[in-house]
Each structure stands twice: as C-alpha cells, then as structure tokens.
C-alpha cells in the first residue's frame, strides 16, 4: 500500500541530488537524525541540513529554487515549507550558523536498508537542540542524557566553541539538577 513511501526512497532521491550536483554535502538532523542514537519517536517530516553549491558569479545569495525545481521535475510536490519526496515531507535547511555548518561537515555515515546516508553526530544534535530551545528540543536533549547517548567531553567542546556554555548551564540548572552524572 505504501509503495515507495519510505525513508529509503526519500534518501535515494536526496543522494541523487547530491550526485547530480544540485546540493552539496547534506546531513539528517531533527527527530529522524536523533533516531540513530535514541529510541524512535513519532515524527511526520525529515529535516535535511544541506550545503548548497556556490551560486554563479560568486553571488552570496543562496536559493533553494534549483533544488525544488529538480525535485518537482521528478514528482516531488511542495507542501508549505516541505517538499514531499518518497512520501515523506522533507524540509531542506541550509546551515544558518557555524554550528550547523560544522554539524554537516562532521556528520557520520550510516545506512538505511542499504542506502548510504549521513546523520549529524549526537553531540551536534544536542547542541542544535539547545540553540533551538523549544520544549520538544529540551525533551530530546534529556533523552540523549538519560540514555547516555552523548560523549560529554565532545559536547562540552562543541558548546565552548560556539559560545553555548552559559545556555547549557541554564539548561542543567533547570532540568538536570538531581540527575546522577
């Protein structure tokens, strides 16, 4: 019934975009990315952090238009801020700061049913969730901590590098006091 409505089909399409030069390096973030390290949690979309090829004439303006055109020509449909590929709504997010750029650059290789893909490291997922700061991001950080799924040393290094230590201390005070280290 679902046919090609699988994450595998979605990732195959994204890998084709990368191979065709429509996008640069990409990494899965968000809830699907966190699933590499945690128990699966219900989500309706896939967050793909994607570097875009440099625009011609050295323009600094980055556009997702070529990416959307490529996918629409191959059956993708636009739905609000998502484009549906392989049955899954995908949100393409060009890195908006150095932390996200580093997270894409340092992403880890993995496979989904034989399809190679890249997922952000657990420590970068936690740091980005801390930055984003919604309730569901805080819950996800707590899951990483409770399940001992982050390397605390690597996380501290990332937090220091990106000026997030004060924010982490606030998070610790609010949510982690009383939880054994």
């Amino acid at each position: 019934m679902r046919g090609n409505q699988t994450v595998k089909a979605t990732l195959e399409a994204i890998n084709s975009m990368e191979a065709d030069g429509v996008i640069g390096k990409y990494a899965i973030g968000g809830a699907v990315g966190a699933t590499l390290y945690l128990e699966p949690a219900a989500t309706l979309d896939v967050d793909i952090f994607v570097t875009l090829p440099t625009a011609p004439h050295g323009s600094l303006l980055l556009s997702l238009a070529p990416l959307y055109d490529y996918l629409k020509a191959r059956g993708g449909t636009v739905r609000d801020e998502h484009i549906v590929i392989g049955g899954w709504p995908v949100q393409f997010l060009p890195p908006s700061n150095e932390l996200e750029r580093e997270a894409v650059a340092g992403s880890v290789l993995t496979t989904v049913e034989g399809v190679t893909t890249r997922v952000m490291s657990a420590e970068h997922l936690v740091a980005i969730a801390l930055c984003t700061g919604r309730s569901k991001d805080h819950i996800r950080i707590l899951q990483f901590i409770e399940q001992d799924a982050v390397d605390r040393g690597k996380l501290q290094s990332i937090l220091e590098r990106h000026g997030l230590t004060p924010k982490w201390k606030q998070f610790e005070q609010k949510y982690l006091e009383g939880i054994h280290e």
Partner: protein
Amino acid sequence: MSKQEMRKRLAALSFSEKVKILERLRDRSFALAASGLRQTSAVDLRKKADEDKGSKD
C-alpha cells in the same frame, strides 16, 4: 520488562529497524487523523477559520 529496559532495547536496534518503526508510527498518525479520532490542531483550526472567512468575503 521495565519501560527503561524497553527504551534501551529500542535504542539498540539498527538505524534501518528504527526507521521502519518511524514509518509505522507515521502511518498510525495518518490513520488516526483520517479516522477523526485525533483532535484538530490549533494550526488546522486557524487555517479552517481563515478559509471560512475567505469564503464569506
């Protein structure tokens, strides 16, 4: 099996297996939404209100 043990077992599955579970969770969400059992979200309600307002204008 305790809830904590169950979560550990689920977390220890391969990424492919966990993605399969994500797909099943998503299918279940759609089935619930289609059956009308799930309460309409605030965003959906706002969209509907906007559409109703537009149709009256």
